[in-house]
């Protein structure tokens, strides 16, 4: 069963994402900042990472670069309200497989995760 790591400093968003994926049976873990995410990913090797960009301790973009380095097989989907064209491009060029803008509908998250798992 796929393993999905949810990374967001906002507990509400983490709960919302977990609920969106609850029916799938995927194994879900969570981190509240980039540093925690990198530590957890190095142990758990998640299939998918749902990654916020604006977080304490370590920027999501810095975490994205480290995650690409330590677990290149993980598919990373950025989930952020900072959906300016240039930032979306930057995240995708840095190796993210998708970008979902906040606020999002649970079906969008489900669709994005299923899509990257099929690739």
């Amino acid at each position: 069963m796929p393993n999905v790591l949810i990374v967001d400093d906002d507990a509400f968003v983490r709960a919302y994402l977990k609920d969106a994926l609850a029916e799938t049976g995927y194994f879900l873990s969570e981190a509240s900042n980039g540093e925690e995410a990198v530590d957890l990913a190095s142990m758990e090797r998640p299939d998918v990472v749902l990654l916020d960009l604006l977080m304490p301790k370590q920027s999501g973009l810095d975490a994205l670069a480290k995650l690409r380095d330590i677990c290149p097989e993980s598919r990373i989907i950025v989930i952020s309200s900072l959906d300016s064209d240039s930032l979306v491009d930057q995240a995708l060029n840095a190796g993210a497989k998708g970008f979902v803008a906040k606020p999002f509908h649970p079906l969008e998250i489900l669709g994005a995760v299923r899509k990257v798992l099929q690739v």
Partner: protein
Amino acid sequence: MANYWICDSANRILGPLGLGTLRELVASGRVRELSKVSRDGSRWQTLDEVPEVSRVVTEGAAEGGERAQKFKAAQIRSRLAAMRGRKAHEIFGIARASTLDHYRTAFFRLVKPFHPDKLSGDTHPDLRAANEEMFKFLSTLMVEAEAELGAATPRSHGESSTSRSKLREKQDRIPNYGAEEFVGIKRGPHFIEATVRVNPGNVGIFTDHSMVNLSTMGVFLPTTHHLPLGTLLDVRFVFENSSREIKARARVVWENVGVVAKSVSGFGVRLLRLDKSDQLFIQQYVDQKSIAQVERV
């Protein structure tokens, strides 16, 4: 190209960013209240100490100023005028016979840019009003489309009867209190206040909702009143058998407006500022109720 890391007043970090991206983010109101900047992601300086960043932030803020916002408001209203009188499926850009899920997905994609959370606190009132008009128009359109489709909607591919029954089970399970438990909403020229009389029968408002609950600093308010997503309000909790009264600033983050037709109508709010002692009191009140239930069994 030089890169920078920025830090906001909540100590959240974004970077590395080029100056062009930073300007775009500031002008659109997506980043605000910047407190520090770094050239390497580790050594931090004030904005004034990095003049090129300070200039970009000032210019970006001016770009997103009044004139630009009024122009944007006019654009939204013009788009809205072109939409009026047309069918939901035409506006959503899908086939008329699409499933309800397709309608919902198309609706959320379309309505997202007009969500109140997208606007910064200093957004011009005209732009805010135009966004609200569009948000309400699209939401009403979706509710009408749902009513039309109703039970006749074909099941979407991949949706099994098991997952459907699980969802129904979940909807039936929560919440178990009714709209009559909610006292009411008082509106003033510059405020909205919701008063909730908490008692052992409705204390589940703090715990029963899977997403809007005490662990996420949220509470679900069962009511037939409608407040748009993003609305700021004051919530006053009055507790039965206690002289304690708690008042907290909150924002609407969840609403049942026909999307989940069988659940109790109402909206979920996120408590923005809640003292530790108040949080502890609510938790104890909830726990006491749970203990009392166990003792009765």
